């Protein structure tokens, strides 16, 4: 069982291929690192893997099937900027409940305090908001998580806390995790396997 992309190709401007013939596979419980420079198409690939964007070439399958059309998406994307990923007019409890009702235990694991629940996003820091975004993405039906530069904006201690919890939950639930980052050291530390976007674009490299 895996999330597989075959021969993926994508461009924004016609015939200026951002990437082409990309093959990628993330299995259950696997932690895959994808490295790449800025502008190399990391975020576009992340959006394609999580069904936010349609690839122009190739196809993408979750556990051998197509993505569901309208239901909950089994591949969840976590963005770099948490403050843009939550509705600024909603209280944090509503932000969480839009996905599902997380239990106390998972909130505690990510260090989410009870008093944060009634606050508005503007009253929390980027790191605190990102914790909410991660918990929100850990819906019981989530099978894969794509973390696109998830902790780039955060300090080292917060990064370490968040990653260790996310990694252990992914191992427990056998969630496939793709970590997309420009920081090679971070990927080397966290991942079972690291590929660079360059390699994906050109396997001969």
């Amino acid at each position, binding site marked *: 069982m895996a999330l597989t992309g075959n021969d993926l190709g994508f461009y924004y401007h016609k015939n200026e291929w951002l990437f082409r013939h990309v093959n990628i596979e993330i299995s259950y419980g696997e932690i895959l690192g994808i490295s790449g420079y800025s502008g190399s198409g990391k975020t576009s690939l992340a959006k394609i893997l999580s069904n*936010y964007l349609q690839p122009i070439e190739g196809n993408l399958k979750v556990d051998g099937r197509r993505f569901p059309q309208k*239901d*909950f*998406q089994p591949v969840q994307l976590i963005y770099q900027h948490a403050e843009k990923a939550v*509705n600024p*007019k909603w209280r944090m409890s509503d932000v969480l409940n*839009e996905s599902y009702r997380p239990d106390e235990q998972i909130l505690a694991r990510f260090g989410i305090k009870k008093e944060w629940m009634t606050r508005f996003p503007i009253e929390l820091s980027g790191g605190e908001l990102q914790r909410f975004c991660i918990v*929100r993405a850990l*819906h019981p039906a989530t099978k894969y998580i794509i973390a696109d530069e998830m902790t780039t904006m955060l300090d080292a201690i917060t990064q370490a806390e968040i990653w260790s919890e996310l990694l252990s939950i992914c191992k427990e639930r056998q969630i496939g995790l793709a970590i997309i980052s420009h920081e090679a050291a971070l990927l080397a530390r966290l991942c079972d396997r690291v590929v660079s976007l360059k390699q994906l674009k050109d396997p001969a490299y």
Partner: protein
Amino acid sequence: MKKYNARSKMLISLAVSGSIIALTIIFSFWLSPDNLITDFAKKSLPPTFRHLFGTDWLGRDMLTRTLKGLRLSLFVGFLGAFVGASLATCLGIAAATLGKKVDSVISWLVDMFIGMPHLIFIILISFAVGGGIKGVVFGVAFTHWPSLTRIIRGEVYALKNSQYIQISKSFGKSKWYIATKHILPHIIPQIMVGFLLLFPHAIVHEASITFLGFGLSVQTPSIGLILSEAVKHISIGDWWLAVFPGLVLVLVVKSFDNIGEQVKILINPASANE
């Protein structure tokens, strides 16, 4: 003396504007229609304590005429602004959500209407639908939607592509859910401000086209009519016929404008906490 901060200044200014409008409406009901009976014994009196705004050439009390006329103007303004704002909301949302073709048609219409002088268009429309209150309401509504449409279109467009709405979609939420829970709460303040700022326009345009003789009929007590009749008498020295109604009109319109502007500042998150 205690120094007022921006917040209390704003509240005071909102309260003053609000009470000017409220007083206008209350007095327009309270003043007896008997004051409007023709009485040649009281013909063309300058302002006195009994007749604060003086009387006209038929002996009617000008204060009563002005306030009752203004009430009708407010009503017409409300209808015009309401229809205009509703139109703008529908077109703005349609332009942002129904694809490129609809968008370009609506944008073309917006550009065309913005490029055309208001007043001429209002006269044309109000003439076409047969004049009267209906003519004024339609005239005002159909000429004042474009700028608000543009604002709402831009707002919905940006929201539609925002990350949290994309995420909401990935949770399998329906279009209806996203429209009502995410998009509407963001654009309702914009619609409200647009509505409030349309109001003074509607009132002034109502007055101006009635003044020009294309608007309301002679029997209806309207501020535009009062002003246009006053023109004939101002040359013989009855200055109060034009000055007081004109002043009250400016005051009420400015009050609405002020409320709209203040609400705009209050709603904008960048300036709300100043």
